[in-house]
């Protein structure tokens, strides 16, 4: 079928970035994620939606092993990034997180200058041998996060002095500075006003050129706007995963229908 909508740009269904099979997550006795198998595509925005407690954030955190930091959390099943097992004993979670960047709900810049916020990752991962190299990375990252024009004259000022929307874009710049392949976003706009939200959404669409982006959002409209693929979670199950267009016009599962139309599910 001919596709006339620019914002929907066709995605390559074959280009799998993250492959998960029968993933289970337990918090102590609580079975938080049940048998989740999904292929997340490269150069695509995938939205995870679902009611609070459905497991979408938990599942997102499996992808960069953030659940490792919770003592009672246990992950089973297979998660592969480019065919490599993320949970293999030979994988260093810190190196993994350089490849799989993350942006959180509340902007959380380090109490450092704007420059140092962005330079932090490249420094600890040894990506910039000289100061000039680091300058290049900082500028490129701030440009990618659409913050360069606003921040270029105040790089040494504290990151915490920026507005909320700017802080979130700073966090995105920080996340992309290590040249990740995947960007995980956990409700990146829930603390932002509509203008800052629109700027971050515009940014997400640009980031898709280079990254595989996975976004958890409570705003169904946001999922509909920014993503090409949508996954609906409910009570720890992946209920439905498909093209965003299909999910929002003609979902297959009645639970998806109830949730996205705002009915009691």
């Amino acid at each position, binding site marked *: 079928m001919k596709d006339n909508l620019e914002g929907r740009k066709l995605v390559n269904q074959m280009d799998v970035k993250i492959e998960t099979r029968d993933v289970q997550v337990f918090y102590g006795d609580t079975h938080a994620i049940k048998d989740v198998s999904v292929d997340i595509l490269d150069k695509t925005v995938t939205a995870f939606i679902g009611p609070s407690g459905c497991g979408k954030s938990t599942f997102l955190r499996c992808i960069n092993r953030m659940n490792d930091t919770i003592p009672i959390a246990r992950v089973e099943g297979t998660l592969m990034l480019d065919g490599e097992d993320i949970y293999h004993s030979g994988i260093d979670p810190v190196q993994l997180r350089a490849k799989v960047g993350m942006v959180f709900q509340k902007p959380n810049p380090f109490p450092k200058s704007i420059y140092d916020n962005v330079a932090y990752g490249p420094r600890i991962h040894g990506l910039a041998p000289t100061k000039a190299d680091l300058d290049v990375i900082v500028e490129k990252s701030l440009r990618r996060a659409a913050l360069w024009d606003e921040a270029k004259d105040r790089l040494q000022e504290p990151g915490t002095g920026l507005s909320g929307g700017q802080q979130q874009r700073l966090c995105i710049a920080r996340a992309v500075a290590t040249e990740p392949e995947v960007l995980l976003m956990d409700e990146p706009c829930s603390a932002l006003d509509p203008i800052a939200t629109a700027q971050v959404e515009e940014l997400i669409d640009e980031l898709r050129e280079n990254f595989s982006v996975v976004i958890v959002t409570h705003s*169904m*409209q946001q999922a*509909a706007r920014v993503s090409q693929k949508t996954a609906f979670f409910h009570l720890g199950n992946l209920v439905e995963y498909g093209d965003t267009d299909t999910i*929002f*016009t*003609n*979902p297959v599962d*009645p639970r*998806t*229908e*109830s949730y*996205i*139309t*705002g*009915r*009691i*599910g």
Partner: protein
Amino acid sequence: MTDQHHIASAFDRDLESVQAQLMKMGGLVEESIRNSAKALKTRDIELAEQVRKGDREIDSLEEQISMDCASLIARRQPAASDLRTVLTVMRISSNLERIGDYAKNIAKRTEVLAQLPPIEGSAGAVKRMAKEVQNMLSDSLDAYIKRDAALADEVRHRDLEVDQMYNALFREFLTFMMEDPRNISSCMHLHFIAKNIERAGDHVTSVADQVVYLATGVMPEDPRPKGNGAPYDLGTFQESDE
């Protein structure tokens, strides 16, 4: 379609209200078709005038529905079956508005025809054709309420019969006009009336298409059943005929 209610009950009320208006509009349009055909058959100028005046209410309902749908989209951002409902209501209301216009047109010509000598039998045939379109409309509105794709699909296929009735009338009018040129004026009006009913049938088919989309999420794939284009063939036949 789910039987569950929206968490925001005002959303339910808004959707119900706009659909109630659509059904009211459907009822008025059915009545217009019925009355215009009846007025034609019985040469009832008063009834024809009533149909003409009644079209205003149909038009204003369409405007109201259109504004209410715009408001629903702006305020509620409907998705999935809600989105399909709003889209379907908008398209069906515009189909109904057109059908209403055709009925009005029939009524106008009826007022002219009532001043001319009657053409034997043809008003009855036109009325049967109108009756079929009216039944199809009634069934597609039923299918809408029940979200019944099978019934809607059945209606889509009945349009072929209307097309065939139209083709038969086309031939009949040609014959009358050839028999006696004094019939030409009446037959031209009657032909436009038959054509209007045939077009109304197309709009009813489009309503049925929308019901299939509403119920299943996909537009019917097979092209709308079409006749063999007999009137066009007849045109060529005429030229070669002495």
